């Protein structure tokens, strides 16, 4: 393998392009550090892209994990200021159903208030007026400032701002080794998945924000972190059945949150420890699907008649506390490890644990530590400086618009003005479910580092709507073939996307989901011969 040595030296290398890594890169860049972000696949490929899209108020953890609850509500308030284009301020209800203990409500409200979370008890009738499809037998409801958040838009806005402030960010760049010399991590070796070339990058400080994959990473420096891979499965219903985030008012358990997200609803989650070898190939089981359906229908009986679109699973990057290999005393709070003091290895920081919505605080802690190591005195400004897309505060205040022209605004905030729209072709929508124009696809390719269909999906929501990419995948792949000049790779990409969508459909493949899958197969396999096109390509590379 050819090693292409890079002469560039950075203050900080950030490993991992999830929301945390993106947040760290932004914070570092804003404090004037020379920073390089490395992502092995694409932004939000891991847990940051496989979650509820829930901006916790902290209520969920108020009783059992008050520190996490306080972290959540503080960041909840920050994100409303800096990331308003990613947020739909829905509020949430904690609902007591006949099976739940009503006395828990008082404990819950008390704990919320202690953590600084506003918690307003409302009577069941009022709750039903707010959410007519809620289980009519509910016995109590508490209103909290939960919200729905778009994790893709959030991460991309952080990456975009990092780049605007001088950060370099690379995708498809997998860290294969840490360069360790004299008890100090001095940089990383990488493999570029697009070119097949190896690179070396050097920095005074390396920050591990690789989530569940971080444990294997630090092993290259002889460091052991006990991770606890907790698989969480979520169902996507093809309809928005509620306006607010709906939670069960009970001790955090499986399948007790329903989150509205644009025109769909997400029901989750499960939590099961899995082997570290399973995290790259997670499969949703029939038992998980059945559990989520059963509990979801308890909360909103209408879900029994609502079509399921897909199911997916993510892995929480939980960390077992040191010297507790059983994982009993797991914290869902932020874990920031200075490996110099912990393991005697200088120049390496691990930032993990936490929640989607505490990413900024996590980034701040890791960057503070990096600054101390570098001897840089620069204050964190990320709590007050709006993200790109949210500079003009009025983007979201118009309230929820499920479809139509607001889609690009929701995704890119006030950055939507950068989307080409002068030409009639650029204004043409190629994904009608999510209203993605050809101009927006071009913008994502030219400005947002999108190289393939999966990248485009994460940046524009293309293919994520009701048809799950059946109509738009081929149109977009053709456009990609044109823009990149590589039809072979675009064709393989098309087949990959269809299989990836099916991977999500398969666990819920009955009813209209199975019908739609049969239609997709009839089109791409039967009519088009996509399978034949791909197999021929594999034989003659």
């Amino acid at each position: 393998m050819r090693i292409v040595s890079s002469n560039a030296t950075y203050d900080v290398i950030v490993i991992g392009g999830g929301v945390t890594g993106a947040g760290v890169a932004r914070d570092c860049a804003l404090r004037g550090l020379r920073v390089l972000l490395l992502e092995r696949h694409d932004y939000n490929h891991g847990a940051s892209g496989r979650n509820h899209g829930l901006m916790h108020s902290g209520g969920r953890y108020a009783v059992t994990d008050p520190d996490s609850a306080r972290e959540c509500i503080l960041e909840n308030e920050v994100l409303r200021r800096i990331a308003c284009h990613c947020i739909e301020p829905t509020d949430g209800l904690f609902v007591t159903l006949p099976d739940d203990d009503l006395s828990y409500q008082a404990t819950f409200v008390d704990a919320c208030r202690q953590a600084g979370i506003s918690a307003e008890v409302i009577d069941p009738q009022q709750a039903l007026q707010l959410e007519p499809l809620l289980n009519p037998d509910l016995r109590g409801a508490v209103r909290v400032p939960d919200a729905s958040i778009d994790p893709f838009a959030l991460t991309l806005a952080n990456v975009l701002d990092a780049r605007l402030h001088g950060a370099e960010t690379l995708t498809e760049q997998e860290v294969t080794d840490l360069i360790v010399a004299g008890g100090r991590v001095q940089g990383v070796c990488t493999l570029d998945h697009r070119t097949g070339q190896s690179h070396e990058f050097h920095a005074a400080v390396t920050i591990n924000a690789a989530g569940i994959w971080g444990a294997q990473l630090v092993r290259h420096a002889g460091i052991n972190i006990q991770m606890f891979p907790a698989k969480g499965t979520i169902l996507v219903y093809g309809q928005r059945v509620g306006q607010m985030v709906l939670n069960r008012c009970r001790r955090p358990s499986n399948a007790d949150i329903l989150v509205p997200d644009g025109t769909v609803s997400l029901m989750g989650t499960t939590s099961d420890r899995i082997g570290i070898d399973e995290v790259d190939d997670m499969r949703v089981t029939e038992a998980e699907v059945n559990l989520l359906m059963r509990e979801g229908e308890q909360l909103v009986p209408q879900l029994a008649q609502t079509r399921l679109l897909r199911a997916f699973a993510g892995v929480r990057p939980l960390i077992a506390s040191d010297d507790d290999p059983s994982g009993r005393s797991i914290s869902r709070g932020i874990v920031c490890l200075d490996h110099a003091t912990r393991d005697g290895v200088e120049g390496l920081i691990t930032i993990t644990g936490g929640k989607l919505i505490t990413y900024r605080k996590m980034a701040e802690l890791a960057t503070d530590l990096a600054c101390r190591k570098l001897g840089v005195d620069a204050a964190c400004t990320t709590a007050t400086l709006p993200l790109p897309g949210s500079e003009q505060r009025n983007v979201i205040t118009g309230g929820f618009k499920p479809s139509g022209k607001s889609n690009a605004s929701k995704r890119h905030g006030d950055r939507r003005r950068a989307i080409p729209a002068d030409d009639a072709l650029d204004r043409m929508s190629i994904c009608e479910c999510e209203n993605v124009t050809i101009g927006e696809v071009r913008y994502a390719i030219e400005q947002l580092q999108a190289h393939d269909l999966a990248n485009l999906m994460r940046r524009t929501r293309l293919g994520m709507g009701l048809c799950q990419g059946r109509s738009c995948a081929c149109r977009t792949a053709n456009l990609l073939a044109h823009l990149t000049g590589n039809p072979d790779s675009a064709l393989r990409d098309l087949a990959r996307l269809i299989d990836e969508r099916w991977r999500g459909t398969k666990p819920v493949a009955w009813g209209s989901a199975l019908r739609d899958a049969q239609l997709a197969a009839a089109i791409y396999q039967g009519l088009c011969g996509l399978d034949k096109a791909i197999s021929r390509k594999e034989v003659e590379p």
Partner: protein
Amino acid sequence: MTTLHTLIIGAGLSGLACGIALAKTGRRVTIVSAGPSTLQLNGGAMELLGCVDGQEVTSPIEAIARLPLDHPYQKIGVEHIATLALEAQQLLGDAGVTLTGDPHHNHWRITPLGVLKPAWLSLRGMATATRPDRLPWQHATLLNLKGFVDFPIHFVAHNLSQLGCEVTVHDIEVESLGLPRRSASEMRAVNLARTIGAGSKLRHLAEAINRVCDGDEAVLLPAIVGMEDDYPVNLLRRWVTAPLHHLATMPPSVPGTRMAALLRHYFKMLGGKFLTAESVGHVKLADHHIAAVYTAKSPGIPITAQHYVLASGSLLSQGLVATCDAIVEPLMGLDVDAPACREQWSHYGLMGDQPFMRCGVLTDTALRPLKAGTAIDNLHAIGSILSGHNPLTMGDGQGVDLLTALSVAHQLTTKCSLPPGRE
């Protein structure tokens, strides 16, 4: 009032072919038609048998002998396939669906991605190849209308050039069409065909083609003309100076829609009746015999006939329905050949040999569906609701549709109810 000879449930390729065959013999036939069928997906070609054991087939008639015993072709009798195939081609031709091909020798159709796949019949005017590895042209000019996104032209160009054909790509604009539109759904192939029609806009299209392709060896145009019949197709061929061939597009497809329109029209011409925008709500069964059928819209009015034909399609057309625990035939609860457990209905890798594609109703050798193991005596099942084959991996979809339809039509028009050749 004379009684109905046959009531057919489903107006896809199979139901229409069966209805036409019966109506031709003077029988009174009614077809219950719920809406557009999977013919909308058809790119202008029929497959009889394209692939056995993962190998592409050059002679379907020869290869049919190698099919497993539960395949629908085995039920209608391998020895009848060639005759029925010729009969089907004739019947479609009578309806104005002019097809060329030979059941003994597959030719190769060109898919919307520019891939060659084996085919039995192709609509006249469609581009085809006689060999799987070579195109009939040294050089082809590939055209698209600016803003038409349901024709992945860059894939077509790439895949055709892989077959040794030099391909030149042109986007053409026809001012009177006023393209492109804001929404891709206004720009589907069928919308274009409606807009282009057979008048001045078609003339403008021909002129636009002639401006870029004068004297070219072959001009390839997505199939965007001729919704009702092939008159505009023929007109365009006459007006365009270079040899013009059409290529299948992404659905909804113009050639498929045209075939459906021609077949429906011909069936009506023969005196057949449609109950359109109707679906069957309830079937009254008594002792493995259909007593009456009720539509969803008129649940109080019984429809009776001497014979009934179930041509309601697979899961896609809701001839079968998958609930979260079972794959069922929703009208009569017929016996369905399907894996018992949900996780076995499908595999990862959508374009493999998916078990759900093989699901269908079980029948006796006369194609009479079974319920609790016993055949319903005045009901036959035809087309894609039948179990025992995967049209996507075997390339036998239209063949099964047409040949089972004709086989059943024969049974219903001979006094003896045994299949032909088994008397």
